[in-house]
């Protein structure tokens, strides 16, 4: 036992130093050098006034903007210091109640919308911070936003189309739209429309 103690202790300390200090610091240095924007969180806006992260969803409730996925994070939706899903089981009555409530809210905000409600607009994401919605969920919201913003639906359709992300390499993952980028583009579209007037 005593013969084992010295190699055990010293090897443990040495390997801790290599894998727990040296390795993360080397990764950090390389990251700062080659991917400074990514390693800091893919932030959008300007230093000191960051609007958000390209990768982290925000809870938008204003009906004049595109809404993201429902979020079940603790304290408030899209809480980026408490990521997580609802963990509601498929047969839990609370899940059905939550989904029904979201359907009612969507219908109330846009009573004459003829499109079916896409499932990702009424179900909570896994991280609670999903930055994307499906193309179907973006198209569904055009009717509401066009009315409130006095824009032609075709204008919004081409806006969504311009922001569609296809599956990576055509195979991996799903088609999606980044909600924050779409909303920022929506604001600049409205701004340019007002300028013309």
């Amino acid at each position, binding site marked *: *036992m005593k013969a084992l*103690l*010295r*190699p*055990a202790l*010293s*090897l*443990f300390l*040495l*390997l801790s130093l290599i*894998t*727990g*200090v040296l390795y993360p610091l080397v*990764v950090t240095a*390389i*990251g700062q050098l080659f991917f400074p924007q*990514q*390693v800091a969180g893919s932030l959008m806006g300007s230093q000191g006034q*960051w*609007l958000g992260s*390209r990768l*982290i969803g*925000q809870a*938008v409730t204003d009906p004049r903007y595109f809404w993201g996925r429902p979020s079940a994070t603790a304290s408030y939706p899209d*809480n980026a*210091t*408490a*990521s*997580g*899903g609802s*963990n*509601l*089981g*498929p047969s*839990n*009555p609370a*899940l059905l109640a939550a*989904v029904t409530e979201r359907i009612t809210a969507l219908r109330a905000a846009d009573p004459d919308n003829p499109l*079916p409600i*896409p*499932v*990702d607009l*009424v179900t*909570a*994401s*896994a*991280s609670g*911070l*999903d*930055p994307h919605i*499906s*193309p179907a969920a973006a*198209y569904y919201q055009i009717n509401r936003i066009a009315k409130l913003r006095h824009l032609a639906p075709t204008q919004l359709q081409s806006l969504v189309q311009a922001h569609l992300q296809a*599956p*990576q*390499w055509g195979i*991996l*993952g*799903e088609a999606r739209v980044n909600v924050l980028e779409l*909303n920022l583009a929506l604001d600049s579209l409205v701004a340019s429309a007002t300028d013309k007037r």
Partner: protein
Amino acid sequence: MNPNAYLQIGLFMGILLLTVKPLGSYMTQIMDGRLPKFSRLLYPLEKAMYRGCGIEATTEMNWQQYAGAMLLFNLLGMIAVYALQRLQGLLPLNPQAFGAVKSDTALNTAVSFVTNTNWQSYAGESTMSYLTQMLGLTVQNFLSAATGLAVAIALIRGFTRHHQSTLGNFWVDVTRSILYLLLPLALLLALLFMSQGVIQNFSAYQPLHPLPTPQHSQVLAMGPVASQEAIKMLGTNGGGFFNANSAHPYENPTPLTNFIQMITIFLIPAALCYTFGQMVGDTRQGWAILAAMSLVFVVMAWAAIGAEQQGNPAFSGVDQSYSALQAGGNMEGKETRFGIIASALFATITTAASCGAVNAMHDSFTPLGGLVPLGLIQLGEVIFGGVGAGLYGMLIMVLLAVFIAGLMIGRTPEYLGKKIEAFEMKMISLSILITPLLILVGTALALLVGKASIFNPGPHGLSEVLYALSSAANNNGSAFAGLAADTPFYNILLAVVMGIGRFGVIILVLAMAGSLARKQRLAVTVGSLPTHGLLFVVLLIGVIIIVGALTYLPTLVLGPVIEQLLMLGHS
């Protein structure tokens, strides 16, 4: 299932199988100490480490010494992780000023990360300082994977050696697997992840000033994520930097990182089959094991994707169909960028291997979709399994299959020229019995004492508890996370279960390896049962499924199966 599902499974298996031979033979070389050219750069470091630590690299250990060294090394790890959590409030790299982690949570986490389980009863971004994540958890991600690999290599040496009492040197096996395998691969992966948007910084949490002002301002959790994420997947550890694990966009931002993460989970366990074949001098033996693993895996992945794509029959007025514009299906607890296919595939991979990282919330899966991960864990983490642990677990199943075949045809069972006798069968039986005992007795106990922690009502609640115990005993670490497991009862129960499930089996495996190494290696004759053909692969799969099904079927019927029937009955 839609065509894209077949395409994604096919692409995954194709790329994985391409890596098996090169990585497998590389591992054979480094574990034998025959370094290829590009690894020799680190050789002076390896030698200097042995000198500094007083290690005689050429002195070999018998199985008791090997087990003793392994236990002591892991005990030190446990103490370090526990101490770091308890003292983090006084230590640097703690911009959010997190205080000491409470003692039962800290104990659970220490055992969890040392045993390669990475069950988490805490939420990373609101509990752990950057120092604890790096110097405690990241370190154990490396060391626990290296421990598993060392034990697997020791067992393989049991087959290759004869009339010998030693199995190698634990310190050397651990050092080599970290320096030449885990560290370079982790570095490469961390770079890939950062290029896609995984964060790596030591900043305080970042406050935002959102434009379409939401009701709440947003603060972004930060940290050195990429370095931990890489080894989390590579070492089949699975403990997330953030609570949402690989569903969090800062851990797994794109479908490409998701694909790389899935490949990385299976990378070493798959290649280790080839290493095994090469070391025992017959690569067909390794391919046969890999074939059995792959067949079970593909069927399970197909089942999980199919179940999740069905969606939830209880929803009305919602479009759950698959189209070019949406993934459809059961999207509760899933991310848009992954949809159904990449989420269900990830869930199958992470539970076939004992990884336990998640990119979707398993608790919200459909009953049958959730049965797949639960069932794969209960099969004993032998379908690829953890780094090292998957192979030694699978070899136990192989020996059992050889034994059963021997009984059927009336011959003394032998595998690779080694007679399987009473001592080996005792070790095998014990190791097959330990985990079910931990799971079933643990579940019964939790249902008596810990029912208040259950989140979802009905049979799903039973599944939550059963999943927790199965995950802990088999060192997986994923969860039906609705279960409120951060209570002293669950923290201590699961810590005990994880510890016995890991080290109990390892000691039995090493004892068996010691016994095998002493035996002579018989020549293969026409009378030997071939263990590389299709017939044996089918027999092996049969044994795995029968052992798993006989043990757990009643509990699975009471959990997911009843829930599925109830759900269909209501709609």
